[in-house]
């Protein structure tokens, strides 16, 4: 790793990791082991097998399902979206995807209870639609604004040339 003269090299060991790495491994795995033992000690409350299944399952669902889906969606966006609109469309899709994921249990109303109507009192499907319309409206406005400013930029050289001939004489 190159350094500028006068500045000390970064303390590195073991393929670019700092000297803190191995101490952090000791501390980190000690903390994790203590937590795992606590989790197992309270097994009646934590149900370790089911918990472990959810823990690993979320990892696998993300790596083997969610991320590949995003990759495929990205390919479609590149192929179907005009180049200039690609950025705002990707941003709106990012927001949409996260909103759909997070709002799902609210929209489905899984937690609603007849004995307690103060839980999940809103119309979440309607609310989600309103938010998504807002997100995509902003995306469209950005695309339109970008197109407008590019069109103005193309006209500007002839306008400034004409303006130069009309500059007031002092």
């Amino acid at each position, binding site marked *: *790793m190159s350094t500028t003269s006068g500045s000390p090299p*970064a303390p590195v060991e073991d*393929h*670019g*990791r*700092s000297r*803190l*790495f191995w101490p952090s*491994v000791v*501390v*980190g*795995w*000690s*903390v*994790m082991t*203590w*937590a*795992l033992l*606590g*989790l197992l000690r*309270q097994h009646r409350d*934590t*149900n370790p097998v*089911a*918990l472990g299944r*959810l*823990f*690993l399952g979320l990892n696998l669902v*993300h790596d083997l399902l*969610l*991320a590949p889906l*995003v990759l495929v969606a990205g390919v479609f966006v*590149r192929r179907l979206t005009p*180049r200039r609109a690609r*950025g705002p*469309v*990707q*941003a709106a899709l990012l*927001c949409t995807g*996260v*909103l759909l994921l*997070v709002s799902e*249990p*609210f929209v489905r109303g*899984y*937690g*609603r*209870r007849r004995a*307690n109507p*103060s*839980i*999940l*009192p*809103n119309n*979440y499907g*309607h*609310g989600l639609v*309103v*938010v998504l319309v807002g*997100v995509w409206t902003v995306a469209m406005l950005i695309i339109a604004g970008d197109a407008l400013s590019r069109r103005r930029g193309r006209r500007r050289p002839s306008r400034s040339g004409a303006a130069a001939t009309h500059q007031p004489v002092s």
Partner: protein
Amino acid sequence: MVRATRSTLSRLRPSSVGPVIEDAFTSPLHDERLATVLGITLGVTFTTCFATGLISHGLQHPPSWFRWPARPVNLYRVTQGLHVASGIVSIPLLLAKLWVVYPRFWTWPPLRDVTHAVERISLIPLVGGALFQLFTGTVNIAYWYRPMPFFFTVAHFWVAWITIGALLIHIAAKLTTARSALANHPMAAESPGQGREDHGLSRRGFMGAVAATGGVLALTMTGDTIAPLDRLAVLAPRRVRHGPQHLPVNRSATEADVVARAQDPGYRLVVEGRVSNPYTLTLRELRAMPQHSAGLPITCVEGWSTAARWRGVPVRDLLARAGVGPHARVRVQSLETNGTYAHSILDALHTEDRDTMLALELNGEPLDLDHGFPCRLITPNRAGVLQTKWVSRLVVQ
């Protein structure tokens, strides 16, 4: 032996197809500096979430050394609101970070040496823990317990420590890489038009989109607690003024199976334990005692909170009648017999506070059955689950 294994694995790499080939991922968003910035931001939100979560856990399961003050009355409102908000904002941050570093999942060979192996293996509890915490936190505030065949608070607590332990290792592993990534300034050098050419979003645009998504989530899911923003909180699990007497309910009288006992004319409040003068009171006698009013918030562990006006009998007055000073530790028992929160413990700091009371009225009306009729405990600066409803007994310890 290690070198031979590494060499064999390298030769076995699929050469023409699949995610393990070199340059399989072409998006400029798979960028070291972007990973670093997202990582630092996640570090801040997760640390905030962890610290505020520990406070909430300490309140509910206090170790012997833990002291939580009665003032300011809104402190827990702030810490728990921050806990849920920082968790929600972490969702787009975490998904974005995992996207940015996704090509590394397919690194070939998967384990280069012992150090690399330890670092990679330590990522399993980090990613799994982070996803677990955000998933269980979200389904918990949605009151959807089916995906969690375990007791949420206990599991959430232990996995938080697993995640933090793994985070410590990850920070140390990436410290040098992060420093050099930040020093290089490729994002500063990137002009506004770059990145939109073939791939779309620039790196700055991507960060903006992630930040905006976090903002939208925070506003629509947690904005209900802040009065001018509550109309925008269309995805919030509660409306903070929606419910009997303009206050949401967590556990109704029907769910607690106390409807008959709470309305029984034979109801008595019992004050007993380490007292010189144990006694009982009917509801009428309780109402005849000097009343005290206070504006105190109800703060749910799910993050929402709202202010309310309470009127009732200060607990210290009830203890004085039993011949006990105001610094006693008291077990507050509910008519509810099943359930984790059928009782709570009042420590001395809260017992002596003038505003800690058995409330008989809420917002100018006799207490609703679902809010704890005939009386409920209300204390400054404590979690809603500890504000015991349908109180039947005060046991001085």
